């Protein structure tokens, strides 16, 4: 038992109720029913699409930790997807297809790349930070192009997929789906926990007012670097899944356009909310799929849609959901 409550404690104002991640839970439950929906007649193509979207959701989620929570707009996040994908591709090519071997290598490689590039780029803020992360991303891109032993510019085709503890969950569309979903839920739970922790509070505070956090006694640079490393490692996981799903790895995975797409997924969903990044990734890939089904010039439609969306919505899709639900529920003091 803790110490007896003091007189003051009895008169303290009540804490506001805890917010529960209802939207995220509903979202995960809905996703979990996808294979059932497919067995009931939804086109099987959808399962592949949603798996791919969830793979990008893992990367977008990790980006939201530094971009939304930490306030650092990284324009080189695709590099981590690329490292994850290339480590997977190279190890499978070399006959080491076991995920329990590949994943530690991915996590270590991403952590190392993040620590080195972060230590340099985090010395800057704002546009300079964007440009430096972009430059590191492009470095990784050209490095991948130079890997002539592993496909170089043409990319690397994989003739088998990873095993997981000897089993072959990636050989089957449905089990692949569930492994990715479980990873996504795990990453969401992990990042949510981190955001609510002491570390997360300091990171959030530093986004708003780094000077205050510094004079309170924190090394803001170190806090941001830790967040950057965690974010990079999680993004590496999505590279592992992407390589296994597409049976192919190429420098295009690392291109700056891909980094830009990740930023847009986060913005589309709602910056800093975490579940927004997931919703954003799902919406982005769904829109891309639908529009590219209509016309091969789908980008001509998609571009202006993005512009309109950014202009007319604040807080992304999550903001819209919030507005709709607050019409039914009681208004929150915010």
């Amino acid at each position: 038992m803790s110490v007896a409550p003091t007189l003051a404690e009895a008169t303290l104002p009540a804490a506001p109720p805890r917010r529960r991640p209802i939207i995220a839970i509903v979202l995960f439950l809905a996703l979990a029913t996808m294979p059932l929906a497919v067995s009931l007649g939804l086109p099987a193509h959808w399962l592949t699409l949603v798996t791919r979207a969830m793979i990008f959701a893992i990367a977008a989620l990790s980006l939201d930790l530094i971009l939304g929570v930490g306030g650092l707009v990284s324009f080189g996040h695709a590099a981590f997807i690329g490292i994850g994908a290339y480590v997977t591709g190279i190890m499978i090519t070399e006959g080491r297809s076991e995920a329990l071997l590949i994943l530690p290598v991915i996590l270590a490689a991403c952590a190392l790349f993040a620590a080195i590039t972060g230590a340099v780029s985090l010395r800057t803020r704002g546009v300079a930070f964007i440009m430096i992360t972009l430059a590191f991303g492009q470095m990784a891109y050209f490095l991948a192009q130079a890997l002539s032993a592993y496909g170089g510019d043409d990319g690397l085709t994989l003739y088998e997929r990873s095993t997981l503890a000897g089993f072959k969950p990636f050989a089957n569309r449905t089990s692949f789906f569930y492994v990715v979903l479980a990873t996504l839920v795990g990453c969401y739970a992990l990042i949510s926990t981190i955001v609510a922790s002491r570390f997360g509070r300091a990171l959030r505070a530093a986004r708003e007012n780094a000077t205050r956090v510094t004079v309170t006694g924190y090394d803001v640079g170190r806090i941001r670097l830790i967040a950057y490393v965690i974010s990079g490692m999680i993004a590496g996981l999505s590279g592992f899944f992407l390589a296994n799903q597409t049976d192919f790895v190429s420098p295009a995975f690392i291109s700056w356009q891909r980094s830009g797409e990740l930023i847009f997924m986060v913005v589309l969903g709602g910056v800093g909310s975490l579940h927004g990044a997931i919703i954003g990734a799902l919406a982005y890939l769904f829109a891309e799929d639908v529009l590219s089904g209509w016309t091969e010039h789908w980008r001509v439609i998609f571009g202006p849609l993005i512009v309109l969306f950014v202009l007319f919505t604040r807080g992304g899709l999550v903001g819209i959901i919030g507005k709709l639900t607050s019409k039914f529920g009681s208004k929150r003091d915010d």
Partner: protein
Amino acid sequence: MTEPVLALSGVRKAFGALKVTDGVDLALAPGELHALIGPNGAGKTTLVHQISGMLRPDAGSIRFRGADITSLTPETRARAGLARTFQITSTIASLSVLENVALSVQARASHPLALFRNAARDEALNRPAWAAIEAVGLTERAHMLARRLSHGEKRALEIAMALTLEPAAILLDEPLAGVGREEGERLIALLRSLKGRYAMLLVEHDMEAVFALADTVSVLVYGRVIASGDPATVRADPAVREAYLGEEG
């Protein structure tokens, strides 16, 4: 005489040709409330920035609790017990009052950056935070977001954050600036309640407050301390009257 908590000797800082701090010597005794006054542009905030570590002096030394801190980073100085508030209030707008203060408690906790334990429900952080919030009279506002506080309440919040650092010295950069009369009086009462317990360097424009609170007053003009002593002596000093107090009418 007791050893000062904070001692500046020969501190100099120039921005180009402009000498903003021109050989300042200043000592802050334990429990002393030392007011630093001076006309606009005298270099008061620049001096506070140098003491807190946000600017590095060109020459001279700053000693804090007997150790030379001249080249330490602001966060190291804060952890050593040197707290400060800002001329323009500096709180975390989207966090509640309680979370702002708990963030400050957390900085001195044994695991300030623990990754997995929930921080908002951490009683080891919240209990000291409540004590500081009560000390500055913000108990009723504890769950309100900092951005919703009035100007004076934000000042009080900054002071609460400073208190939880268990400071040996607090630098207060114009805590009364822009605060209305009623709130100003509440803040003066708050500072008076802290007087004697903490060494405080108070930069302030409000002469009434300075002469009501300060044990010692130093006058800074063009980066130099032109007078220093008890309030009555400084008030009577002809050089001070000419340089500064005269303008106040």
